[in-house]
């Protein structure tokens, strides 16, 4: 069975298009609409990887990354940030928060899957 990946994004279109690509590559996909929901889902269901947006209502992506890194049981899950933010300083914030990697949108299908494979090892 393929690894389970949690997608955290406030846009339904992004969640569904990422789901589409990942399912085609054999992964199991779970979704959350913001950081708060993402944290809740991680508490309920194991994920092998989290893919998150940055700008979201209720709890933004980087706050969620920090909280995951402080929470026993989920603190070691790899997290890829998938965002329109390409500014060096924001990427640096992501690294400091504890993100595993950073992908700038718009992204190409193969590159996304390639990066996921690298992270999952």
């Amino acid at each position, binding site marked *: 069975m393929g690894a389970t990946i949690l997608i955290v994004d406030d846009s339904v*279109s992004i969640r569904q*298009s990422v789901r589409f690509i990942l399912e085609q590559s054999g992964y199991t996909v779970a979704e959350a609409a913001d950081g708060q929901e993402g944290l809740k889902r991680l508490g309920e269901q194991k994920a092998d990887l989290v893919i998150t947006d940055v700008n979201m209502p209720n709890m933004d992506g980087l706050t969620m990354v920090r909280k995951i890194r402080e929470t026993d049981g989920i603190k070691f*899950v790899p997290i890829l940030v998938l965002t329109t933010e*390409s500014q060096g300083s924001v990427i640096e914030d992501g690294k400091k928060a504890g993100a*595993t*990697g950073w992908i*700038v949108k*718009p992204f190409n299908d193969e590159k996304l899957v390639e990066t996921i494979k690298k992270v999952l090892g």
Partner: protein
Amino acid sequence: MTKNLKFGLPEIYIGPGEFAVSREPVIISTLLGSCISVALFDLDIPAGGLNHFLLPSPKSGSVFSESGRYGVHAMELLINDLLKLGVSRRRLRAKVFGGSAMLSYREKAVYNVPKMNIQFIFEFLDLEKIPVDSYSVGGDLPRKVLFFPHTGKVLMRFTKKTLAALERRESQYSHELREKSDLTVSHLFRGEKTGGTGVEKKE
């Protein structure tokens, strides 16, 4: 920024691939051919924004096609900047313009570029549950659009002027999009805190 003398307001003109947002009484304007422009606004703030985009190689108008993803991206850039102005995604309303059949490469293409762009934007807005207040799409004439972000009002008229120049700009933009489409930027961070076993990567 120029001043629109008729309305006595500052006017921000956007070209293909660009977008602008504002919560001030200004005008955001554009001239559209095959491209699509979406005006999004939240009257409670009030604030709004306008974009101007095209799917790079629309074999399909689906949000889930590779090409559709670039449309999703254009919409996301606009929505993100609106969210930064305090706009609520749930209160967003839309007006949609463009998609006229005027790019000269349309004769060579096996697919119908404007039709796919139109199909894309309505599918996107439906998925995101953003209501469409009005639209004017299709046909074969360029459109001049004036958007007033603080009221959500749009003035639109068809124009026959600047056809050749507009067509050239949109073709060039479409070409640039296709060139860019395999330049995904990704970084994997090296470090103890970062979960994975990443290596630094930039391409």
